[in-house]
């Protein structure tokens, strides 16, 4: 058998979404276009991952090992050309109109090859996510316009989401902890806006970002009650980048320290008022945690994929390593976990389309406006000016608030946390276990198998440590019963 006949994971023929998650067959009958679109997304994403990413990721990892500030923009440009970095924006406005399910497919295929390069492409939606969470018409239109303009011009546009501080990681993501934290950042009111001070650390894309969404308290002695969310162009005076971290893995995605030295933020860039900052964070987490779970599952799939191919090539005692019984049992064992968690992650993505921010695109007022109005008009200056009107701007926010309620956000934090822990623990377990199969020889750097293991560990740490996720899971379910 030729190696390319081993059609597992990345090397299977796309689309195989319904084939590998058979329950989607029922959805396909009821909503054929919904599933057909996801299948098209899978074809595009798998092709990109296999043909563009796979041949390059080791070379990129090597360069970033030498210099953590090395940024590969080549892959990014290719993804930009396909609009993969703005996939969630409606077609009418210049994006691909990809649903949460379509985006899940994208995240899975890309992460199965390289978590870091996948992050560079897909975390770009952070800007859009932040805006959607706000759902103030002026913010949403502004951000979408920035993203689509940059895409057309092929100009990199990076966003960073700055929550973690040197002395507070978990403390910034949980209300109970936040109440007790000692912040290293603070904001104060000045005429026309705010001044920000302090340090944030471990910020993905902090060194490349054009805009930072930062969560900072107004009153450091009452962090929870005064936590606010600011939108900060990184060109603003007083903003600077510190160290770009040298990490174990996920090297092609930069992680940096950022400093605010009396950075001025105009009133309009206060996204969440004091006391609402944590709510903004929780809503972002309610979306991202499930996807990080999927990243982990995808890395497990990718590592197993490489392992299977190696075990097919490697001859021992006149047969393939793949023919050893213990290897077959180990592979099945890993596969069964991947299958279970993966199905649960897709369940999450579909629920996201059904109930969460993505469901907004299905609501009549939004659907109708997208249908009736032209792109030029929606993203034009006059609409943006109209959208700035306080009443109109807030109407969007209120409307969305009625759909994505606090209760719904916590429901998705719960679901997302369960998947985040399952998927990322799986990533570490599988990426380590496949190395036990391929041995020292299979661990050679050039083969790219050990990279999964180095990359995987970070997924247990960020997006809330897996302990913080477990705390949320209990708190939001059993804990809230009493």
């Amino acid at each position, binding site marked *: 058998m030729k190696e390319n006949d081993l059609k597992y994971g990345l090397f299977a023929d796309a689309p195989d979404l319904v084939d590998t998650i058979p329950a989607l067959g029922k959805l396909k009958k009821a909503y054929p276009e919904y599933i057909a679109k996801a299948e098209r997304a899978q074809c595009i994403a798998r092709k990109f991952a296999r043909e563009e990413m796979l041949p390059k990721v080791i070379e990129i990892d090597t360069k970033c090992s030498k210099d953590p500030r090395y940024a590969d923009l080549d892959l990014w440009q290719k993804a930009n050309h396909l609009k993969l970095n703005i996939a969630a924006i409606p077609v009418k406005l210049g994006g691909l109109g990809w649903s949460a399910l379509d985006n899940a497919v994208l995240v899975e295929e890309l992460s199965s090859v390289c978590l870091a390069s996948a992050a560079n492409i897909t975390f770009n939606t952070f800007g859009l996510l932040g805006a959607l969470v706000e759902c103030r018409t002026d913010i949403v239109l502004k951000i979408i316009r920035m993203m689509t303009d940059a895409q057309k011009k092929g100009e990199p546009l990076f966003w960073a989401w700055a929550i*973690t501080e040197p*002395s*507070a*990681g*978990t*403390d910034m993501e*949980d209300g*109970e*902890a936040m*109440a*007790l*934290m*000692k912040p290293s950042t603070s904001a104060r009111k000045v005429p026309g806006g705010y001044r920000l001070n302090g340090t944030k*650390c*471990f910020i993905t894309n902090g060194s490349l970002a054009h805009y930072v969404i930062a969560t900072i308290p107004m009153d450091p002695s009452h962090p929870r009650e005064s936590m606010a969310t600011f939108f900060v162009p990184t060109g603003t005076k007083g903003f600077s980048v510190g160290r770009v*971290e*040298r*990490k*174990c*893995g996920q090297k092609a995605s930069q992680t940096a320290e950022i400093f605010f030295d009396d950075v001025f933020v105009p009133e309009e860039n206060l996204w969440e008022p004091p006391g609402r900052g944590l709510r903004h964070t929780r809503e972002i987490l309610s979306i991202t945690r499930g996807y990080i779970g999927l990243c982990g599952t995808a890395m497990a799939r990718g590592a197993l994929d490489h392992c299977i191919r190696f075990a097919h090539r*490697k001859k*021992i005692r006149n047969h393939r*390593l793949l023919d*050893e019984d*213990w290897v077959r049992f*180990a592979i099945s064992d890993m596969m069964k976990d991947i299958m279970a968690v993966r199905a649960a992650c897709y369940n999450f993505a579909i629920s996201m389309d059904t109930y969460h921010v993505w469901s907004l695109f299905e609501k009549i007022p939004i659907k109708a406006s997208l249908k009736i109005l032209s792109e030029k008009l929606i993203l034009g200056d006059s609409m943006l000016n109209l959208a700035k009107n306080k009443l109109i701007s807030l109407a969007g926010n209120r409307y969305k608030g009625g759909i994505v309620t606090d209760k719904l956000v916590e429901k998705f934090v719960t679901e997302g946390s369960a998947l985040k822990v399952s998927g990322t623990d799986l990533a*570490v377990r599988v990426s*380590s276990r496949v*190395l*036990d*199969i391929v*041995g*020292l*020889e299979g*661990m*050679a*750097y*050039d083969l790219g198998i*050990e990279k999964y*293991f*180095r990359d995987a*560990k*970070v997924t*247990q*740490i*960020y997006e809330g*440590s*897996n*302990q913080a996720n*477990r705390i949320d899971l209990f708190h939001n379910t059993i804990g809230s019963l009493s």
Partner: protein
Amino acid sequence: MQFKELNDIVNECKRFARNEIREQVLDFDLNPSPAALQGIWSKSAQLDIPSLLLPEVYGGAGYPALCCALVLDTFASECAGIASVFAHHFAACMPLSDSRPDCCETYSTSISRMEGYGSAPAAVIFSGDPGDGEIELIEKENALVLTGITPPVGNTDAAGFCCIFAKDPIQEDGITCLFLDRDRIENSRCKDIHLPGLKINPFRKLHFQGLKISSTDIIGERGKSSDLMKKTRSAFYGFISAMALGSARSAYQKALTYAGLRYQYGNTIIHHQEIQRMLGAMLMKLQMGTSGTIQLFSEEKLNLPFSAPDPMLTKSFCTDMAMEIVIDAIQIHGGYGYMHEYGLEKIMRDVKVLQLLGGSNPYHHVQVIAEQL
């Protein structure tokens, strides 16, 4: 050997590791240099470490393998890569005391005097490591030649000499032990495979394509060294266990210290029960691994059922538990644990290589039962 004497040596080694290794560990990882390694090696000779195992009559210290294991543990708690250089060397020296007196004398003397091929660490190769290539002696045109590709082995770059256990068809299951000096393996080196850990010690395969072997290369009798290989390999497994313990202990200590300093939820995280549970589980594994490894090397074996640990299983247990410990130690450090400068992620990469050194752990489990059949 007296306990006090052993303890003194371990303390000396601890000091040595702290003074000579600690500061440079991260640099060894980023810019592994043969010169830096040679520097440590030469300095270690002042404590007689390279000749620890060798017979006293030839200038060695004549200490037991347990002493080597304890030294490796202390070295690994600073840098497993450096420790692995010594581990390969100690294993390569093991067969000397069972070899022909002239051979033992030549090699032991050169090591204890740090002269010639004895001035650099030695390498050791076992034929037919599970799942990997076999090396074999064959008769070709009236000469005896060595053929085959070895699994990736450590110390091949620095090696002053190489101890090789090769298959020998001269008799069924025959193993012959060879000692070859640096020049003889020069042309057999394949490319550095760049493992994720133990970076100061580059691993390569050696490809022997009919290397001529003379009778002076062979120590002991042809085809009759399988017990010697077993003994040497067992010691090597014990050495790997010791390195895993040292690495894991260091990770545990770092986590314990950090947990006492880091505040989250208004208290140092060591006050959170889940962190206590993680640290407690780490300690449990460390204690069990340590007692198993010590027992492996102890001369007085308890005669109880299931009391004597199997070397391969001890290695498997110790390296697997070390991996679990390091992963949790990183977790306790949160984002900081993932950063190079904290040194923990390096331990994780080192331990991953230790897990696979000498064969893969799940296969060891298969093997230990299959061999009984």
